[in-house]
């Protein structure tokens, strides 16, 4: 799975590279951003809000707002990360993206025990993202529209795949329904990815509460 993910990541990187060039970033600047920020959506949005010269604080806050979902994703990794040595857990978190996080959680449910799956696929995604940025910036708009290849639906298709291993069963869908409703509601009114934070926490809290109630009843 890591190789096709790397390829998909090149395709996304191409899109960012083209956009960064059109925005006026030098190749070195676009590459440095992809290598150190390594978060597609926030980089794309930053290009949309880029000014010449750029507003340092505003763009930093924008990036944090869009990437705020990472905080809860990282929290969900605690049971897995806390047994790892400092360097390994932090290297893993540094390359954590939506895609390899979801893949890691799904594999863990299926019985995979080695957290290296997140670090390994994260590195593959990073290499793809940075080389895609270089290609896109060099080739420019000659690439055409990535939407013509359906590249923009990779993320929803991939997340849909991750649903079945995480599926709690029909009798436990209530937390999922609450999560979806809260996410949709918050997304309409709050910028960034706070909707992921809100939906995830609401669903998790309801699930935890329901489980606790069931345990007290039976135990």
């Amino acid at each position, binding site marked *: 799975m890591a190789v096709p993910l790397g390829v998909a990541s090149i395709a996304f990187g191409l899109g960012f590279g083209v956009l960064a060039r059109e925005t006026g970033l030098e190749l070195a600047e676009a590459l*440095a951003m992809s290598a*150190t920020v390594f978060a597609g959506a926030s980089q794309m949005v930053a290009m949309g809000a880029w000014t010449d010269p750029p507003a340092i604080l505003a763009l930093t806050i924008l990036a944090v707002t869009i990437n705020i*979902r990472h905080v809860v994703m990282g929290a969900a990794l605690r049971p897995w990360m806390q047994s790892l040595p400092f360097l390994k857990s932090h290297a893993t978190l540094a390359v954590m993206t939506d895609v390899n996080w979801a893949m890691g959680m799904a594999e863990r449910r299926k019985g995979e025990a080695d957290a290296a799956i997140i670090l390994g696929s994260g590195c593959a995604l990073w290499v793809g993202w940075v080389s895609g940025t270089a290609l896109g910036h060099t080739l420019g708009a000659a690439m055409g529209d990535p*939407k013509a290849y359906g590249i923009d639906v990779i993320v929803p298709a*991939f997340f849909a795949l991750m649903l079945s291993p995480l599926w709690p069963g029909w009798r436990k869908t209530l937390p999922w329904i609450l999560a979806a409703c809260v996410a949709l509601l918050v997304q309409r009114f709050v910028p960034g990815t706070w909707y992921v934070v809100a939906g995830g926490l609401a669903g998790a809290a309801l699930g935890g509460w329901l489980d606790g109630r069931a345990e007290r009843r039976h135990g």
Partner: protein
Amino acid sequence: MGEDLQVWLTIAGMAVGTLMTRIGGFWLMRLVPEGGFISRALNHLPGALVISILAPYALDGGWSAPVAILVALVVGRLGLSAIYAVFGACALVAILRLAV
């Protein structure tokens, strides 16, 4: 301040800010005691997060994301590899876009 410097400081700000979001959750969880409600809720967090990310895609008004989600779910159910599911979804959307 030179304009070049300002570009590099912006990139640095975005990079540090984003890194903080990546390691922040792990560190926050260290402050929270283990066991009880938190552990039970953590079990439900991955699924709730995936559905929270997916729901707005499914209802964004266009047809392409719902089609891709459906293809991925069906191909995934058939037990085929994730590669077929994801790239099959992309290919179908690309073909449908040519037709529409």
